[in-house]
């Protein structure tokens, strides 16, 4: 986005030299995150219960042939790895949108009911149709639940406009109620369905297949560019509604579009990977500690950080407790939190 730096210029007068240095630093940081992500993907592909070397993996990636290693890499590890990256990026961007929009550091996709709606739909699906319908319909049910919940929060909070503060209050209330019904369903359903539901709620990428990856990809391809187009409006809204309107921002339309992006991203991610929503809370914070202000700068960095967190969480779940394959959700906070504490400690004298 070329617009947002120019907006920043008007707001915080900085000399061209420092702006140039800031851009260079940002570009190198993004490049570094990208390289780390690629390297981590290579690492993740070569580790697993079946021993494979990095060279063998590269070889089978370059020239797929009929071998065990090719099967493991192409059909088991690669789709799972790609889904982890996509889901992490989607949740992080969804969280970044919400935190910027409602101007609350505690906001996450949970806050407007996305996660709890998806969880309720998924658990209801398992409890009611678990034996009659194929498990392949689970993502569709979860996605429908997420969208319905977000819509319901929106309608209940609507009073001629969408004030972020009211949206958040209605959202946490409705999330609490849906969470309660979810718990109730788990309590009354039989043990097997309850266990499946529990694993799903924790968030797992187990047994990912290519159709899942292809189902997740379009959401990101549409929503991420769209929210980048609106990045300038987001920065203006951060200064307050009056200033934003003065700068020519259509508050209602911008909020609706950005909110829709967030719902779509988080809803799809939760549908395919379950309750990993902690990524949506923590990744934007880590990213903003790294890159500073400006929504257009924040989004790519948050996406990379989110992808890295879920990648390592799933990798740990796969290989740390062999032969068990544990849900990635267990490790998401384990991977993200210590790093976040470190960042918080390091930046204690600079900001906030």
């Amino acid at each position, binding site marked *: 986005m070329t617009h947002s730096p120019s907006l920043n210029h008007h707001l915080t007068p900085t000399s061209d030299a420092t702006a140039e240095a800031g851009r260079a630093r940002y570009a190198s940081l993004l490049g570094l995150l990208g390289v780390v992500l690629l390297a981590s993907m290579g690492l993740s592909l070569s580790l697993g219960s079946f021993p494979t070397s990095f060279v063998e993996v590269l070889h089978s990636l370059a020239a797929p042939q009929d071998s065990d290693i090719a099967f493991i890499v192409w059909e088991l590890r690669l789709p799972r790895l790609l889904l982890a990256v996509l889901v992490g990026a989607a949740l992080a961007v969804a969280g970044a949108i919400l935190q910027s929009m409602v101007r*609350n*550091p*505690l*906001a996450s996709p949970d*806050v407007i009911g996305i996660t709890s709606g998806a969880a309720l739909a998924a658990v209801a699906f398992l409890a009611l149709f678990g034996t009659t319908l194929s498990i392949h319909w689970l993502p569709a049910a979860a996605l429908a639940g997420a969208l319905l919940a977000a819509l319901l929060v929106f309608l*209940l*909070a609507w*009073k001629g*406009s969408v*004030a972020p*503060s*009211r949206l*958040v*209050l*209605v959202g*946490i*209330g*409705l999330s*609490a*109620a849906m*969470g*309660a*019904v979810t*718990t*109730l369903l788990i*309590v*009354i359903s039989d043990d097997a369905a309850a266990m499946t539901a529990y694993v799903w709620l924790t968030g797992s990428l187990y047994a990912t297949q290519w159709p899942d990856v292809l189902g997740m990809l379009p959401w990101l391809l549409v929503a991420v560019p769209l929210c980048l187009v609106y990045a300038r409006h987001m920065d203006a809204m951060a200064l307050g509604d009056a200033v934003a309107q003065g700068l020519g921002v259509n508050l209602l339309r911008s909020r609706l579009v950005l909110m829709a992006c967030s719902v779509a991203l988080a809803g799809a991610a939760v549908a395919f990977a379950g309750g990993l929503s*902690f990524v949506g*809370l*923590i990744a934007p*914070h880590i990213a903003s500690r790294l890159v500073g202000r400006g929504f257009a700068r924040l989004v790519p960095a948050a996406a990379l950080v989110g992808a890295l967190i879920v990648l390592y969480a799933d990798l740990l779940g796969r290989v740390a*407790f062999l032969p068990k394959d*544990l849900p990635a959700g*267990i*490790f*998401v*906070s*384990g991977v*993200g*939190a*210590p790093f*976040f*504490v470190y960042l*918080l*400690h390091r930046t*204690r*004298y600079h900001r*906030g």
Partner: protein
Amino acid sequence: MLNQRTSRVVGLLLGLMLVAAAFVASVMLGTTEIAWPTFLEALLHYDSSRVAHIILFTERLPRAVIAALVGASLAIAGALMQTLTRNPLASPSILGINAGAMFFVVIAVSLLPLHAPAEVVGAALLGAVVAACLVVVLSRGRHGELSPLRVVLAGVAVTAMFVSFSQGLLIIDRQGFESVLYWLAGSVSGRELSLVVPLLPLFAGALLLCALLVRHANALLLGDDMVKGLGIRAGTIKLLLGLAVILLAGSSVALAGMIGFVGLIVPHMARGLFGVDHRWLLPACALLGASLLLLADVASRFLMAPQDVPVGVMTALIGTPFFIHLARRKSA
């Protein structure tokens, strides 16, 4: 909102009556119904050979006392947290209290041979205090000031860290999981009065602290500078109020486990009815929180009898419609 002084007083009195009614209902209703005469008789002439009297004193009364105490404490702690962080999404768990308590309980049960209820309560209290202190240390700025943003971020980080440590331990030790699960789900039943008594000074101390600091809490709403006008540094006030939160929420979590919703939502309800002035807000929180948890606990015995529904579930189911109504009614 209740604006007149008289209508607020009437509101609080109604709240007090609601608590009293809910308390009596909690003692009397259940699988074994205890009639009025039995109730009075047991209070006046306790007879240890009668089943109804035993049920009353070992099961019903502790349950009602804990529900009222925990509901009131969590709601007050939540209101103070929201004032301290100036964040409507804050709740006592943001100080890391729940996560710290959970981690220490998991350690006590799975690594150390501590299983007795009193030991678990002690471990939970210690964990809550340790985690909250960690959050305070991490969130202090250069001059020792507690900025709302840093408190929230540090709280999120510390919470996440303790939760993941606990989950890791629970995965390794599945049997520990079974025994901790009960505590994690949050419940006010199955505790004896002897567990409550040692914690009473903590509750009382915290309430005294709140009573002394209501005016300062009001000033905090207007900004740190306003507090200076009252003669005490804002940082000191925040630390003292934080201490009250730790005592209230830590003891509550230790007694009843993870009961969400009350600490987050009830302060909003009280604010919707009584406004932001802490002199009214805190008593309103106490009454609403206590009656909500008492009623939820009573309802949880009947919803799927003979199985008890987790009380946290009932709290959310009963409280949400009212809460959403309030959130909508408030002008933007």
